[in-house]
């Protein structure tokens, strides 16, 4: 079953946490029915802050981000990317990134359905 051919894509997006609701709405409109979200910390161009406790200095350059994973049919991928990109944008540094990865197979655990049917 592991086809080797990637008709399905995984879109990973790192966004600002307070944009999650808007992005979810946008994805919903595009027709995405499933999303998985993880809390993450991001390090990038956006500057963090310095914490000082009783003389000890800690540079906190990891900022809170949210990581979204959406697996969709190839045909939908571009629209998903655009939906995320526009909903998550503030124009300020640190808005985040979207990555597209190939997926070779998918299974819906409840039913055992495979690949395109599974997502």
């Amino acid at each position, binding site marked *: 079953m592991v086809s080797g051919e990637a008709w399905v894509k995984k879109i990973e997006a790192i966004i*600002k946490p*307070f944009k999650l*609701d808007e992005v979810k709405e946008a994805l919903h409109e595009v027709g995405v029915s499933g999303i998985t979200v993880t809390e993450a910390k991001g390090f990038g161009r956006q500057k963090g*802050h*310095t*914490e*000082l406790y009783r003389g000890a200095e*800690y540079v*906190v350059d*990891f900022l*809170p981000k949210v990581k979204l994973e959406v697996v969709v049919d190839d045909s939908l991928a571009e629209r998903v990317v655009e939906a995320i990109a526009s909903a998550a944008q*503030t124009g*300020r540094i640190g808005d985040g990134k979207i990555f597209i990865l190939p997926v070779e197979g998918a299974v819906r655990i409840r039913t055992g359905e495979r690949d395109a049917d599974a997502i």
Partner: protein
Amino acid sequence: MKTWIKLSRVVAAAAALLLTAPAASLAVAQEAAPASASAAATESVAASEAVSESATAEAAPAAAHILASQKELTAATLSNANTTYLIFCTAMVLMMTLPGLALFYGGMVRKKNIVATVTQSVAVTCIVAVVWWAISYSMAFGTAASPFLGIAADKVNLFMGGFDNLFLKAVTPATAYSAAPTIPEYTWISYQLTFAIITPALITGAFAERVKFSGLLLFMILWSILVYAPICHMVWGGGYLAQKGVLDFAGGAVVHCNSGVAGLVSALFLGRRKGYGTEAMAPNNVIFIMIGASLLFVGWIGFNAGSEWAGDTIASAALLNTMLCTCLAGVSWKVVEWVFRGKPSLVGILSGMVAGLVVITPACGFVNPMGAMICGLLAGPVCYISATWVKKLLGYDDSLDAFGIHGAGGFLGAVLTGFLADPAVNSLGHAGMDQVMKQLLGLGVTIVWSAIGTLIILVICKFTTGLRVSEADEEAGLDASQHDEVLDH
């Protein structure tokens, strides 16, 4: 345009507040005649004080409300039992703010603001203590001996205690405050300080998640002096409202209505949080809310029963009333919520309990347990409506319901005191429409003073330190932007 909306809201608020004015003035008018009588009574009481007090000091300490002055404390008049009582009540009320209120509010905001919210309670505690020592204790519990701005001393005394006791300079180990003549004034100052701390700390609930730290500090300093001290003096320091016979056992008007109204005005002035109504703003930690509310409940025993300044029968009534009203209000809020929301929530029961605590505050030393149950039955639904429907309707963003619960609850409790006071519990209490009018007078004066004072202070802060953080800072969260200190690393 935004400014416009803001302004119009402030105007609307002002209008709403003025609606209470007629009630107040009505009450003032009604009181005009009896006032002189009452004043006379006050004098005669004062005259017979030397006699009556030694005999009945313990039996009726609340009478001392009206007789504000410093007294000599000797080994003969000192009561170790009462001092012990008030020292522990001080500790308990301190615990209400730290860590109680800090956690109660801290748990309710979003995670990116928890540190800042908690810091507000801590910083208010520190700063108010210093202000209390320097200025506001004198204004609240002093007795003005000289005219101020050309106003005669006795007129000044109606509204504040003057400046003769700045830096506690007139306080010695041998002085007591007249309301609690068996207790060293040092303990009295400490106990009252904890009230002076929690009142402004309650307002931070309306500021939450968008206020600038420096602005908050300036606000709190000014508010302690210009709003809290005078209102405290008027009701508890022998001032105008005390003389009018307003009943406020532990602070329905002085603490709750006062801070609630200040919270409403502040919420309107600051405007809503970014994302209010669209973004999810669920509490970051309901367990912290529970710890906070529980410690508020426990500490409130020192607040309510403590306001008798002695462990006697009235304190006992205040204790039982506080427990009963709080618990029933928890139930009554829960039931309302169960009906309207489908499921009861922890935050709901806790909110109900806090509402019950607020409502019973002015009444606890005056009503009997049946009265307390009536307070509890109403506290839940009334504050539920105020903190949910009314807030939604009016569209202001009182983040943690400083007004919704403390404002509304304080108002309700003060009015109910007028209806339910039972002279068998406290001979100073008395129920009836005349007392209700007195209560409305007290509330009216408190509301107007608090609203106007708060507004003036907000304007001052806005144009000096600034009051609201930048949009980017609000997005990033106050923890990072105001304190460089976040909960999760």
